[in-house]
């Protein structure tokens, strides 16, 4: 079995790794954005809810949350498919962290620009959508890359709920071939390539929306 064969065998798992990562990032991005917006709009009734959400999903380890969802909920009669369990644990954790990234970036929006938008007659919501969010998203790119790569690096936990991602394939392969060194080297390489594709993807998107003088890298 050559190194190329090993890569080929593992690449079945790579699709699952990418799938889990993208699904959790999408969940985290959506939820994080929603939470940041809700907090920005200062809705009174929502404040305790978002605070509890942030505390729980930043304070409880990922694996514990995953097991609570995947093994705990069925005992209450709620069956959760593996991918959904990942989204409800890892996805929501990244949502909590991303909402903090977004909050910081929203606070960096120039108050005078918001005032100018209000003075023009835009509604609060129009101001948020046309002025604050576009600036916030651009300023959040470094924080988002951080958070997205963290999601990627937590994705192997999907293996514990039966998703045949890279690590699952690797351990199976090691037990039949006993070639741990090469196999885990290949695993490392694969994660590293996925990491780079992820970063390049975000950079490509960022480049399309880059504005002179707004953010610096």
């Amino acid at each position: 079995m050559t190194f190329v064969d090993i890569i080929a065998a593992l690449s079945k798992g790579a699709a699952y790794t990418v799938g889990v990562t993208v699904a959790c990032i999408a969940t985290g991005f959506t939820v994080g954005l929603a939470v940041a917006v809700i907090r920005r709009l200062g809705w009174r009734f929502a404040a305790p809810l978002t605070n509890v959400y942030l505390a729980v999903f930043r304070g409880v380890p990922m694996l514990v949350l995953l097991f609570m969802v995947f093994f705990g909920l069925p005992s209450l009669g709620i069956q959760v498919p593996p991918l959904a369990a990942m989204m409800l644990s890892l996805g929501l954790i990244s949502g909590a962290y991303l909402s903090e990234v977004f909050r910081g970036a929203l606070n960096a929006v120039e108050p005078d620009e918001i005032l100018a938008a209000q003075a023009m007659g835009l509604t609060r919501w129009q101001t948020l959508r046309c002025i604050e969010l576009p600036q916030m998203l651009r300023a959040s790119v470094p924080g988002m890359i951080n958070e997205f790569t963290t999601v990627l690096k937590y994705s192997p936990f999907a293996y514990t709920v039966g998703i045949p991602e890279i690590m699952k394939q690797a351990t199976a392969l090691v037990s039949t071939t006993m070639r741990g060194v090469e196999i885990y080297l290949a695993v490392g390489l694969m994660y590293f390539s996925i990491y780079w594709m992820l970063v390049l993807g975000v950079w490509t998107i960022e480049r399309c929306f880059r504005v002179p003088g707004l953010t610096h890298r």
Partner: protein
Amino acid sequence: MALLEVRHLKKTFGDRAVLDGISFDLEEGGIKAIMGPSGCGKSTLLRCINRLIEPTSGSILFRGQEVTGRDTDVRALRQMIGFVFQNYALYRHLCVLDNVTVGPRKLKRMSRREAEGKALHELQRLNVADLRHSFPSQLSGGQKQRVAIARALAMDPAVLFFDEPTSALDPVMAREVAAVINQLHSENVTVLCVTHDFELARSVADRIIFLRDGRIRAEDTADNLRNHYDDHEIRTFFGPGAAPV
């Protein structure tokens, strides 16, 4: 009937009366300047009129309509008042053209084409149409100021408010802004201009309102304020040899 009639306007922050019974009129097509020492409430006055700040009491009539009421359509009021901020407050993620089209598109429901036509017209009027694809960070202070004015004009406001339009500009650019305001005056635009710059006030305004400690101490032409008042405060502020503020 005046475009704007302000009567007994009061604004208190805590127990401090920042505006303490302001009354004045602004005629259609007229230009008034508001001057006064720092902290006397000039910005607060402008912001009370377009309800960025809620006045405590008093009355503001806009084209004869009371606009301080609870049921006033604040956003409609704001659309009639073009506001030009001291630091321009251009939207930094938008190019010049988009800065000017935001209002028409979002508030007047214009199509992008229509709004861009309108925006180009206003940018040409302010002589900055060739900058339309630039971003705010690429503009000089004077250019930003012109774009900010074009952005306000694109809404076809009934009146333009300026809050210290020249205080961040060098004297040459300040004179340019004065020229722009004079040009707008000749095109029959109504202007209310807060400024520390006596030259600007003198060259653009029909009359200057002198505000101090939340009250109007005098309202007169620049020359009269400079030469014909015995009041100590007015003499020290405007009189011959008065220190620049």
